[in-house]
């Protein structure tokens, strides 16, 4: 076969392979098994989640933050709108932590029904604003959390 024809066939095959792989990833549900974190609803629905290190993500439910200086913990609830899980964190939460913000915590749900963590990660929204004037409604930040 002519070299030039061969090269073009190679190009088309490579394109087909790439497009096929992309289509498979985009339209199959293989993403279902690739979860970075569970929502409270998902976590509570699983009976195998107890005592395993997992990530839990959702909104810090307003009015639930409680600082315990003696025990050096901060406790709050993470909610996804329909379910909520109480969380207890040992150590300092990050500076952006506040009521209503999206967070992902790493830790485990223990038999006491409380999710124990030492790592709170704060999820920022895709809104970037100057400080003066209107402030972002923290509830809006959550809107980018329940994607996927």
């Amino acid at each position: 076969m002519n070299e030039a024809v061969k090269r073009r066939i190679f190009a088309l095959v490579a394109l087909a392979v790439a497009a096929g792989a992309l289509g498979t990833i985009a339209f199959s549900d293989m993403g279902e098994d690739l979860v970075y974190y569970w929502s409270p609803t998902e976590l509570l629905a699983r009976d195998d989640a107890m005592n395993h290190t997992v990530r839990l993500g959702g909104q810090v439910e307003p009015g639930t933050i409680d600082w315990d200086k003696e025990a050096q913990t901060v406790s709050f609830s993470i909610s996804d709108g329909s379910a909520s899980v109480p969380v207890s964190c040992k150590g300092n939460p990050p500076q952006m932590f506040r009521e209503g913000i999206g967070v992902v915590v790493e830790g485990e749900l223990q038999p006491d029904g409380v999710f124990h963590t030492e790592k709170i990660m704060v999820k920022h929204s895709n809104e970037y604003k100057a400080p003066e004037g209107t402030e972002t409604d923290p509830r809006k930040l959550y809107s980018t959390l329940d994607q996927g």
Partner: protein
Amino acid sequence: MMSFLSGLWAILTEPVNFIGWLGFAMMAGAIRMKPKFAWEHTVGVWGLLWLTIGCALGLGWAPKEAMMGEVGRILYVHVPAAWIAMVVFTIAFVSALGYLFSGRLGWDWAVEAACEVGVVLNGLLLVLGSIFAKPTWNTWWTWDPRLTASLVMMLTFIGVILLRGAVRDPNRRATWTGVATIVAYLNIPITYMSVRWWASMHQQQSTPATMNDEMKMVMRMCAWAFLMISIWFIARRWRLAQANAMAEMPEPLEIPKGAR
């Protein structure tokens, strides 16, 4: 569709984009007029100028972000690194198709150049992202879909470069690199879409509507600067690839009649 087009038109006609249009005009002018210096130096200097201005405005003039405070200023280098890494990989992809369909080694040198520059930008992107993530998310690294996809994207293109280095025959090497680049380009749509397909730590793409005007302007300025500098890098790297190819080419032989 109409709203997409009008949105695109609004972005393209924003005043700050004169940096890009003027840059391309200067580039075209320099290529046509064939000055004593290489044409790419015009865009190189132009990009460096706007990177300086962009960084200065990013540090001193743009407002701090409402929640991220001063740390939000990292956006002006992090986001352009991401955008332009993807643009540069796209240049590699188009050049790979160019080689495979035309057989001209000039395209192959462009693949070699763009893959390397893309990896540099991708590495910068990961480091900047890590520096950004520590104060905002409270972690240097986490295996979320976006971060993982960006890392895989870089490793794949490093693989393409390594593969290229392992093949001796120039035409074979060009074909293999081209095919590998086309397949590796799969990573770009995956990385781009990762924040939409999967729940992740990384926020979704911002849109013009979700960003303060001054911030938007500085970010565009830096993005154009990154692009111009990257064009300069690719052109310089292309010349290097060309020189290497010339050096390894055998002395021209008398080609016997009838042979291809």
